[in-house]
């Protein structure tokens, strides 16, 4: 169309009073939904910083005195200070912040909690498996994008369909396999599995990104004497960086959040954070603030990432098949 300075088309039937009113109603509705849908999250985030009685208060306390109690009790193992010895502990010279907080509650820190270790496992497993699945994925995606691989359509369908399998179907035999290979309850076992499941996703997503890089760049490089491999490294990869980054993040989130496999294929040593969380409810004297803090560790990165990736979200949830 002509290079008009028109930003919004101002159609005659859209500027009347009735049109403006219905527009206002629509905006109000959708903002209301956004607010309401955030209430659970908001409540959880604040619960992580509340003291125990505050968490349980009804009507819910909107204004409260923040404390790190929940977070500390999540991350540390404690034992109760024998009555009468509080002062002894309070006056020790080497008290850190966490120590002080707990001593106020009559407990002394004896070491990192099981959860901390689980969190670490999550980082290791999610991190390594994501790196692997993105690395292998970008190679396969490139090959599928640029070459007429025999049976390409079938291969791609096959790769996509592996993602459709319910976790439980695959777990039983893998459980048995792992028992035989002694991969049960190991980091390697989970890493292998996560890499595989993320692969199908990452191949499709990356193929979508690579498809959009014009072939002309590589062709120019090839004409200039570069080998295909060099063209791939020097021309395609740099241009695919944003796609790779987005894929990396999506895969990481999936691996980080993964629950079912972690539950079934690990127990003590390699267990990641998600399966641990429900079991924290088992013991008496439920530390709700601790649980809230645990979930916080999962929410905050996700919220940040959702903002960062909002332009890629459509591609992410449809495996790169569709773009805005």
């Amino acid at each position, binding site marked *: *169309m*002509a*290079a*008009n*300075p*028109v*930003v919004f*088309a*101002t*159609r*005659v*039937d859209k*500027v009347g009073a009735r049109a403006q009113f219905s527009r206002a109603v629509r905006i109000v509705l959708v903002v209301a939904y956004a607010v309401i849908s955030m209430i659970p999250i908001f409540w959880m985030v604040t619960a992580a910083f509340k003291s125990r009685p505050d968490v349980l208060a009804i009507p819910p306390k909107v204004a409260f005195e923040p404390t790190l109690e929940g977070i500390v009790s999540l991350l540390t193992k404690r034992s109760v200070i024998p009555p009468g010895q509080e002062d002894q502990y309070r006056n020790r010279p080497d008290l850190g912040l966490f120590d002080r907080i707990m001593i106020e509650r009559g407990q002394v820190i004896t070491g990192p909690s099981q959860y901390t270790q689980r969190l670490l496992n999550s980082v290791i497993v999610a991190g390594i498996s994501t790196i692997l699945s993105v690395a292998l994925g970008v190679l396969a995606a490139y090959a599928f994008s640029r070459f007429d691989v025999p049976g390409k359509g079938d291969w791609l369908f096959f790769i996509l369909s592996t993602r459709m399998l319910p976790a439980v179907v695959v777990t039983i035999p893998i459980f048995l396999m792992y028992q035989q290979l002694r991969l049960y309850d190991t980091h390697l076992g989970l890493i292998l599995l996560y890499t595989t499941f993320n692969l199908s996703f990452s191949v499709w997503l990356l193929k979508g990104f690579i498809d959009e890089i014009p072939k002309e760049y590589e062709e120019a490089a090839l004409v200039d004497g570069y080998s295909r491999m060099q063209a791939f490294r020097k021309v395609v990869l740099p241009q695919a960086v944003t796609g790779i980054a987005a894929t990396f993040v999506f895969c990481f989130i999936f691996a980080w959040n993964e629950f079912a496999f972690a539950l079934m294929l690990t127990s003590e040593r390699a267990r990641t954070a998600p399966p641990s969380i429900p079991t924290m409810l088992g013991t008496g004297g439920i530390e709700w603030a601790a649980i809230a803090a645990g979930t916080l560790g999962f929410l905050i990165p996700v919220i940040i990432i959702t903002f960062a990736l909002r332009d890629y979200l459509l591609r992410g949830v449809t495996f790169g098949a569709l773009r805005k």
Partner: protein
Amino acid sequence: MADIELQQVEKRFDEMFAVRPLDLTIKDGEFVALLGPSGCGKTTTLRMIAGLETTSGGRIILNGKDVTRLKPSERDVAMVFQFFALYPHLTTRENIAFPLQAEGETKSNIEQRVREVAAMLRVEPLLKLRPGSLSSGDQQRVALARALVRRPACFLMDEPLGALDADFRESMRSEIKHLHLQQKGTTVYVTHDQIEAMAMADRIVVMNQGEVQQVGTPAEVYHTPRNLFVARFIGSPGMNLVRGVWAGDHVSLPLDNRYKLPAQWQAALYGVPAENGITIGFRTEDVLLRADGPLAGTVISAGLLGSFTMLAIDLGDGQSIIEARVSRDMRVSAGDHVRFDLKPDMVRVFDSKTERAIQPA
């Protein structure tokens, strides 16, 4: 069919004028082209007539009714868009039937009307197909059929040939013109292609940067452009324009060329301030190569374009280059020095500063 009247119609975005206050009367059955380069306001004007754009001022009168505040659906216009705007999920038949269905017409009426219009536009074999499987020319014909099916008060066309492949453009052009002659519908046609406007319109409204430059018949805008813009824009190529200085009884042109203006200009030129300068204009076909001509120059290029040869002649200063259409038998090549004259009654004179045409006495 109906009259369209635009009274002081304008469109503003904050401080910027997309369309300056415009007055225009289009008679019943007339074919008027809104012509100009991108961003000149022609499309905005058309959309204001359609109701797709609000006016910042002025009134639009359609068939005697003030429609300025009315919705598009209340105005009884039909529109043909550059990108066809056919509903992609409907077949040709359903596309054409759409307006009548929206109005709640009976099925048998719709059937009949669709058949009539499809025959008129020769799209009967396409009725079961979807727009996706049609060529651009066919798609536009379906769009035309859809516009015709309602028998509206007027037709608005927004660069309808713009998205067509080159081979379709000419044939569609004559088809639209033919349709117009048949249906005698009031038509407002937006285009940036002056050949289209010249070929099809009864009158042309030349616009630039939101302002109307000239309203006239094709002959008028071609032979008597009102300003330098129209002179340049109309014609392929546009009018040759050479800047010079009025020196009493002749115009001094680059590199010692002197052109003696015919008598009727002398009187009019006295009114022009000397410092403004004069620009003379003449069309390529009004250049006469003559060994005794008053003007001289060097040929830069000579191209045989089939029925004639086009020369580019440098008047000497490297900047004033004119184009001349000469007989194809003429043996002239680059580097030749030539002398030429201009057809006296076809010469036009403009004020270089105000860019307006100077009228002879």
